[in-house]
């Protein structure tokens, strides 16, 4: 996969490409310190958050997922890779939360029983980077907690993330409940699970839209800010 050009740093994508194989190897070996050091180096080279998220984190985690599906790595390796990526995302917090705020808010959550949270967190971080308040609720969020935060924060958008197809009914329940309590709240849904369908099930509700990629999400954010 060729890394897309990074407008803020034209050499950012090629820098990520140059270390990608070493990073993936370290990730699969569970070498946390080595992975974090590489990410730190990219930050110092001012590679954009978007490039690091898409071309390093997302790309490597998708690859780890494929290796696990093909039984080439164990679930322990997959868990470790996820944990390391979570830690690495923390290194970008100073950049994420330094953006000037535009006064708009979003809440990002995972469906009940959904333990894969990195995708949702990336979405929340993207919003923060573009000046929104991005509240992230984490994995396996009970609907009650989600509704409580929506009531408290009165966001402009609610984003729901789904990684495992089997959790689609839970996601639909989240949408139904949120729609019943907040009829005018715009809802975005997305995540890897939608590769196997489910978009229509979500979009049959009013003011619910499926977002297929972080690039598309960025267009939506820029359009609405």
């Amino acid at each position, binding site marked *: 996969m060729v890394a897309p050009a990074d407008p803020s740093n034209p050499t950012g994508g090629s820098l990520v490409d140059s270390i990608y194989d070493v990073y993936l190897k370290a990730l699969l070996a569970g070498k946390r310190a080595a992975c974090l050091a590489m990410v730190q180096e990219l930050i110092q080279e001012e590679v954009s958050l978007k490039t690091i998220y898409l071309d390093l984190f997302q790309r490597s985690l998708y690859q780890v997922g494929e290796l696990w599906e093909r039984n080439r790595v164990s*679930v*322990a390796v997959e*868990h470790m890779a*996820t*944990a390391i990526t*979570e*830690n690495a*995302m*923390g290194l970008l*917090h*100073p950049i*994420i*939360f*330094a953006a000037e*705020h535009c006064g708009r808010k979003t809440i990002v959550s995972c469906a009940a029983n959904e*333990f894969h*949270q990195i995708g949702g*967190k990336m979405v*929340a971080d993207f919003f*923060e980077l573009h000046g929104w308040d991005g509240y*992230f609720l*984490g*994995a396996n969020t009970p609907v009650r907690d989600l509704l409580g935060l929506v009531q408290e924060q009165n966001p402009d958008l609610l984003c729901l993330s789904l990684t495992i197809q089997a959790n689609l009914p839970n996601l639909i329940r989240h949408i139904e409940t949120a729609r019943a309590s907040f009829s005018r709240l715009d809802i975005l849904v997305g995540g890897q699970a939608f590769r196997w369908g489910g978009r229509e099930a979500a979009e049959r509700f009013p003011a619910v839209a499926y977002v297929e990629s972080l690039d598309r999400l960025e267009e939506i954010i820029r359009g609405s800010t």
Partner: protein
Amino acid sequence: MRKPMKNLLLDYLDRHASLLLLEIAADGTIRGANNYARQLLGDGLKGKRLGDVFLDFREDLDLARLVEERRKPHLINVATAHGLPQTFHFRFYPLENHVVAIGEMNSIEVENLRRELVQVNNELNNLTRRLHKKNAELTRLNELKNDFLGMAAHDLRNPLSAIIGYGEFLLMEAGKLSRPEHAELLKDICSLSRFMLAIINDLLDVTAIEMGKLVLKLRPDDFSALLRKTVKMNRIFAEKKGIALVLEDRLPPEKVCFDAGRVNQVLNNLISNAIKFSGAGTRVTVTAAVDRERLIVSVHDQGPGIPAEEMSQLFVPFPKISVKASEKEKGTGLGLAISQKIIAAHKGRIWAESEKGKGSTFFFSLPLQT
């Protein structure tokens, strides 16, 4: 199963399988072990008692009963050679006049533990994210506050200066006023206006410092000369209250690198506070000396002292201190907070010692840079 296959399996179990195989004699001692057991539990297994290897194995546990219950796995922790215990599911089988214990790693427990760890890691990362977010919000609010303070202070300072100017001019013409009490009112107007201006100037100072705009003009200078000048100026106020203001200068003649204007501000603050909280007939002593690589200044008064529980608040803005000035003089509440920032910017330290009824001593140190 044919014999070659059996032999192959046996060889595999002995050399390569991740199963613990222990051959136990009737007296409870270990007679043999496979390769995995020897690697995990250490060499010298032969002759060891089961109780030495099985951490929660009780001596009264009946091997015969364990053999009878062989369909049921027993969860047992074993002491590994690395020191950390590991959990295995054991089944016990009779073999001639021995017992064979076969232990499998408790994969369900391990899987549960892993899942738990992953969740804990997720929660920790989520909490860290929330912390960073809150921190960023607080920083923005602080900047907003500083901007507001700065604007408000600037907008208030000019009119106040005008009020003070007009008041002082009118006081000069006090003899022409129709009623003598009007002169007193004018004095009050000037004095209160000056106090408000002092608060505004201090607020501007605090705002500038918090926004990182405190820039020190460090130059080699004569510290003793500054001390003498500041003490001389404050002696006028001290003598009005019947307080002796004394300087004990033990500094060497070499020049020291510091911002004279800002250090003067600190000295004035400490000395004027000491005078404020002292009564007639007492003494305020200013001492300066060098101690290793630091210049240390102390200002000691014989005032009422500060209660121990209030000491931690001294250097915060608007501290709630129960001690009152001896003649009810007012302070802005920002002097010590500003002094601390100035001294910290010099890479020095400011602190206080006090005892109720015995007075207080305020210290500050500056690194000696020539």
